[in-house]
Structure formats: structure tokens, C-alpha cells
């Protein structure tokens, strides 16, 4: 493995006392001195700023761009309008997941894809292999920096820096060529925390000035930095899937409960369609459920879940939830057993701890 890369914000994290780790080949802060729990509360109650420059960006252009995306995405891109964003898994023909991505539509011939850092190279290869007709693909990941501004104060903070009226921007919508503190940016109302918030993309050369402007504007609104640790807890509280945990080559989007992002009856054939249709008909032995611990104990990835000594699945992500003050987990479990019983046990080291099935998401913000 080569040396991890530094994002344009590396020095900012160091100056703020961020504890830096290697994450998917990037040096990123896992937490700041106030601690993960505070970072979670800050995000839910005020606002936090995250460096998400590790995310990959891919431009898809050409006359056949839309038809091409219809083939590689499981969601139905024909429903997507200009300046709107769609979430979609990308599947292999067997229904396993290549990645889960965001699709930004600039026009019917111009799309901007945001992919997971760890999957960027694999995705780009896959996109190229499946390309046809008039489609031009560009991996822009190394050119873009990205800030996520998350939490209820986000709009007020960002509004200080731009002429566009953010109140008019709906969730999962964006504008490109926006000036944010004089820096040409893409501004989207998106995030991975379950809160309101924005993600701002700019080219690397404007990144430092963008961060400073957002940071400065945020000071009167209690803006604080947050790291990867808080990001993972926040997304888990909001029950958002994370590739490698709830989605993988071995797990389909249907198993992960992402049915509303799987357009099985899309007019055109897409990668994974047959396999997913078949799986929907035949069912599967493991499906994603939410768990809440009834005894104190931290459910963590890969811990077995049991009913009457019978193993019925595994934890895919688990944590202490600062927002709910509970121990929660997402787990792939046998749906037939779950129909019979809501009470299960999680094997933590050598001991079983009681837990119960609860409805996802664990946390939903008040609108």
C-alpha cells in the first residue's frame, strides 16, 4: 500500500487537534479534542464541519450518458430532473453491490457521480467496462475537495457566504457554479448524518479559502469540527448503509432493505435486474433489521446474533448512540425467525446479551 494521501484540509485538522488516522488511503481526523459524543450532539443540535474530500467524483458526459446510467444503476434515473440528486446502488449481474453512489444531474448529457473513497478505483474500472455509445467518463476524484456542513445551523452559516437562496434548495437538490465566499463550488443539500445540511465541492486550489470562510462564518453559530468517528455514529443512528457493512459484493440492496432505490420494473434492462427480481420472488435467508440492546453491552460488527442458541445472523454495524443513549445495531438476520420472535441475543465475546428487534431508522430528525 502506498502512503495515505493528505486532503487540502489536513493542516486545518492538525491545527484543531484532530486525531489523524489512515482511512481508505487518506489521512483524516477520526475525532477532535471535544470527543466523539460531543461531536454527535453538536451535529444534531448546532452544526459541524466534516472533511469528506476522500469521496470520489466521476463525470459522465455524452449523448448516451442517461441510457448508460440507466444500465449501470438499479434506481430509475429517468425520474431525475436537472439540479436534482438521486441515491442508487450499483450492482453486479448477480445482484451483489459494486458501490452505492449519488448521481447529480446537470443535464441529460451531463452527470456528476459521488462514490465511496475505498471504491473509487474499482468503480471507475467498472464504469469503463460497462460503457457504450457516446459516453465520456472522467475520474475527477483527485481534483475535488469536499466539505460537509451538517446540523440545524448549517443553512444560516452557509447563507452568509453565498448569494443563492439556500432556503429554496430542497433536500437532494444542488446548484453548480455557485460562488461560496468567492470560490466556484457545487452546493448540494445532502449529507450522511440524518440532519439537514449541505455538501460543498470545490477544486483543490480553492479548498483552503473555502474552509476558512465556512469556519469563520460558523463561529457565531457554534460551528465545530467533527471526525470520522462521529460521522459513522451519526449515519448509523439515521440507519444509513455503509458499503462494506450493510452493502457488499455478497449482499444485495434488497437484503439491505433499500427496496425504494431498486427500480425492479424499470423499462430498460439494468445490471443485476434478473438476479434481484429472482431474489425478490424467492426471498433470502438474511435481511437487515435494527436491534436495540436490552442489557448494557456494545454490539459490534460481526458479532453473532442468536435465538435459543441457534445462530440467526450477524451484526453489520453497532455502536453506543449518544443521541438516544442506547446501544444500537444493524444486523443481517433470518427473516423467518424474526417473524416468530422479537427478542434475540448478541454474543459479545463469551457472553450473550439480550436485545430486541426495533424498526429502522433509530433516529429521524423532526421536520
Amino acid at each position, binding site marked *: 500500500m502506498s502512503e495515505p494521501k493528505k486532503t487540502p484540509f489536513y493542516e486545518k485538522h492538525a491545527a484543531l487537534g484532530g486525531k489523524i488516522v489512515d482511512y481508505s488511503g487518506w489521512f483524516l481526523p477520526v*475525532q477532535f479534542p471535544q470527543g466523539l459524543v460531543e461531536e454527535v450532539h453538536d451535529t444534531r443540535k448546532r452544526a459541524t464541519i466534516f472533511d469528506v474530500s476522500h469521496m470520489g467524483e466521476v463525470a459522465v458526459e455524452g449523448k448516451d450518458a442517461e441510457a448508460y446510467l440507466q444500465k449501470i444503476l438499479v434506481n430509475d434515473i429517468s425520474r431525475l430532473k436537472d439540479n436534482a440528486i438521486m441515491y442508487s446502488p450499483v450492482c453486479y449481474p448477480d445482484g451483489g453491490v459494486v458501490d452505492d453512489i449519488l448521481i447529480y444531474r446537470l443535464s441529460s448529457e451531463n452527470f456528476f457521480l459521488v462514490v465511496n473513497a475505498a471504491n473509487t478505483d474499482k468503480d471507475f474500472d467498472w464504469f469503463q467496462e460497462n460503457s457504450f455509445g457516446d459516453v465520456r467518463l472522467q475520474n475527477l476524484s483527485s481534483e475535488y475537495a469536499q466539505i460537509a456542513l451538517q446540523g440545524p445551523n448549517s443553512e444560516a452559516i452557509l447563507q452568509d457566504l453565498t448569494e443563492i437562496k439556500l432556503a429554496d434548495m430542497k433536500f437532494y437538490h444542488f446548484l453548480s457554479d455557485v460562488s461560496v465566499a468567492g470560490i466556484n463550488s457545487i452546493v448540494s443539500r445532502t449529507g450522511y448524518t440524518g440532519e439537514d445540511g449541505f455538501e460543498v465541492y470545490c477544486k483543490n486550489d480553492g479548498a483552503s479559502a473555502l474552509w476558512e470562510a465556512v469556519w469563520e462564518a460558523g463561529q457565531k453559530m457554534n460551528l465545530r469540527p467533527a471526525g470520522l468517528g462521529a460521522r459513522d455514529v451519526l449515519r448509523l443512528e439515521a440507519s444509513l448503509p455503509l458499503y462494506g457493512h450493510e452493502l457488499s459484493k455478497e449482499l444485495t440492496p434488497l437484503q439491505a432493505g433499500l427496496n425504494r432505490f431498486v427500480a425492479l420494473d424499470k423499462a430498460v434492462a439494468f445490471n443485476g435486474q434478473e438476479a434481484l427480481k429472482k431474489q425478490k420472488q424467492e426471498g433470502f435467508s438474511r435481511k437487515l433489521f435494527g436491534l436495540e440492546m436490552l442489557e448494557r453491552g*456494545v454490539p459490534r460488527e460481526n458479532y453473532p446474533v442468536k435465538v435459543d442458541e441457534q445462530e440467526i445472523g450477524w451484526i453489520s454495524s453497532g*455502536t453506543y448512540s449518544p443521541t438516544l443513549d442506547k446501544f444500537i445495531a444493524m444486523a443481517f438476520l433470518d427473516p423467518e425467525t424474526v417473524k416468530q420472535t422479537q427478542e434475540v441475543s448478541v454474543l459479545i465475546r463469551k457472553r450473550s446479551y439480550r436485545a430486541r428487534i426495533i424498526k429502522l431508522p433509530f433516529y429521524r430528525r423532526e421536520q
Partner: protein
Amino acid sequence: MEYKVVDGVKYTQQHEWARPEGNIAVVGLSDYAQNKLGEIVFVELPDIGAAVEAGKSAAVIESVKAVADLYAPVDGTVTEVNETLLDQPELINQDPYGEGWVFKVEIKDESQLASLMDKPAYEEFIIKEEKEE
């Protein structure tokens, strides 16, 4: 990072402390280690009467992101555990050398305790470890 290293206890290289009280040693996690671990949310205690072995895991301490073993500083038999930690594991963060003690062990071999680090040695050890990171 700020942390306290106190007198009157002995320290291990895995950042446990042991305070002798007669033939019993009170065992806990150092302030430095609890600081590094972050907000502690769960503690798994040994059973009373369990035989623990120096350098082997005797308890488990978990923060939101990490699982850490608490190794026994000496060989012996567990005589008491801090059950308050089951409901208030954050006591380890708040008062690592006091209310946040983890278990007590009957000392088998006094020389094991004597071989552990005192305050100045542990302070030096932390500085060295920090540099290596």
C-alpha cells in the same frame, strides 16, 4: 493531551495502575489511557474469585469506537469488583485513580508489584511511547 500521573500506585506498560492496600492491590486504568480511549461506555468485569495472571486480560473496557483489554498487573485472585462501573462506566473517565477503580486482587507475589513502574518511570514511558506514534 493532558493527563495525570499520581504517586502511590505502580504502573504497567499497558497503562494499568495498581495500588497496594495490605496484601490486596486495587487495579484501574491510568488517566493517560482513559484519555486516549475516549468516552467509556461499557465495562466487563472479572468474576469474584477468578484467578488472574499478570499480563493477561482480566477485564474489558469499551469506548464508543474501541475495545480495550485491562490486563492484570499481578498474579492473584479477584476479591472485589467495582460494580458501580456497570451503570456508570464513565467514572473511569472522570476519576480513573479513585471512583473509577476496576477490581481488587489478592497479591500472590509481592515482587511482581515491585517490578512495575513508579510515577517518574511511567511519565518517561508515556513520553517515549508518544514519540513512537
